[in-house]
């Protein structure tokens, strides 16, 4: 479970930009998976490809959560809890939590990713961060491979626009040009 937990947490974190949300999403996803497994026939269970299925559940939980999230969703009576007030001031569009601790380039990329619409963010995260293949992403997102490719591409175009010249600065050695070598 450790490996799945780590992967799903990483995915949920990139989707939400918030550690607390990501942990709750993973917890919900596992509970949903557990319930769903209990309702499946042995044949269904045998046919199940666990990893993509868990990503799908995690994504659904994330979608529900981000849809239900109101910007004013502050802890009850945050007054007596200065941490809660701090959290409140960070509400609104999702922001990577630890920006200040991280080096600027990473924070820039994290923020850029969070600016993408959710379906493009999911495609880009699965492709480049989770390292999933197009057919795997198609299975996770229940989309045709062509759609996945086009979403990945659109995500990259937008990120390229947001990051602009920062892209080259990201790596001290410059960008590796695997295919042109």
């Amino acid at each position: 479970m450790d490996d799945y937990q780590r992967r799903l947490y990483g995915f949920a974190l990139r989707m939400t930009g918030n550690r607390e949300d990501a942990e709750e999403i993973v917890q919900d996803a596992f509970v949903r998976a557990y319930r769903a497994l209990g309702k499946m026939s042995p044949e269904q269970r045998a046919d199940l490809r666990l990893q993509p299925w868990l990503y799908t559940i995690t994504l659904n939980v994330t979608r529900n959560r981000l849809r239900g999230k109101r910007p004013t969703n502050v802890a009850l009576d945050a007054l007596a809890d200065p941490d809660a007030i701090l959290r409140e001031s960070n509400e609104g569009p999702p922001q990577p939590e630890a920006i200040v601790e991280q080096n600027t380039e990473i924070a820039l990329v994290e923020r850029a990713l969070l600016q993408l619409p959710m379906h493009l963010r999911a495609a880009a995260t699965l492709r480049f961060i989770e390292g999933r293949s197009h057919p795997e992403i198609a299975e996770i997102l229940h989309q045709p491979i062509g759609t996945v490719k086009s979403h990945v591409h659109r995500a990259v175009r937008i990120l390229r626009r947001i990051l602009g010249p920062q892209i080259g600065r990201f790596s001290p050695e410059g960008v590796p040009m695997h295919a042109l070598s």
Partner: protein
Amino acid sequence: MRCRDVEALWDELRGECQASLKETVHVHLRACPSCQDMYEQYEGVAYCLSCLPRPEPSCDLAKKVIQHIAALKGKGHSPIVLSAVATPLGRVFVGFKHHRIAYVSLDTGEPLDEVIARAGRRLRREVVPGDAPLWLVVALEKFFSTWTIDDAIVDISALTPFEQAVLRAAARIPPGEVRSYAWVATQIGRPRAARAVGRVMARNPLPLLFPCHRVVDSSGELHNYYYGIEMKARLLEMEGYRR
């Protein structure tokens, strides 16, 4: 090969694609500076994303998941049923089990699935949707006319002893009146625990019934409320609070 066709193949180059295909794309890229530039940027973005760190979840996440699932598996643990009940405040979601109310959530337009998931996480119990029984409708009607709840029909046993003490102290504040966090802390014999009281209020699984809306800043300011400061003011006004 046209530029558009080549662009569609960029991502293929990252995987195991045919050598001949790779060569065709490379030939085009070498001959076409604009495609080459775009491709470099594409690879740059992909590289940036692949470099993002993979933060670890907190070490007790697995434990939480296992506990939550164990609670679902537990024999004799009948689930908490969550029903929507019409009230003067609009729809209110109420979770109950064995004739006792264990969870309350005002309707914020959040999908039912998410309300159920939130209740399940908070109480670490299985929560399922269901219809509101008559006793529940009657109990809520009575609550909205008296603004007090009969202790026998609420269940806070899933909470820690500290949380239970805080909520019981808050319940002693008469309707239409307010007290400070420090007052609640003093009531439970922990005068220095005002902040901890605030945190319990923030996670109150039974808002309205355990009136965290009657607990305010020492200066008397209402400050924040999960359902918005306007809701806090509205609840106090409905109870007859006059500043």
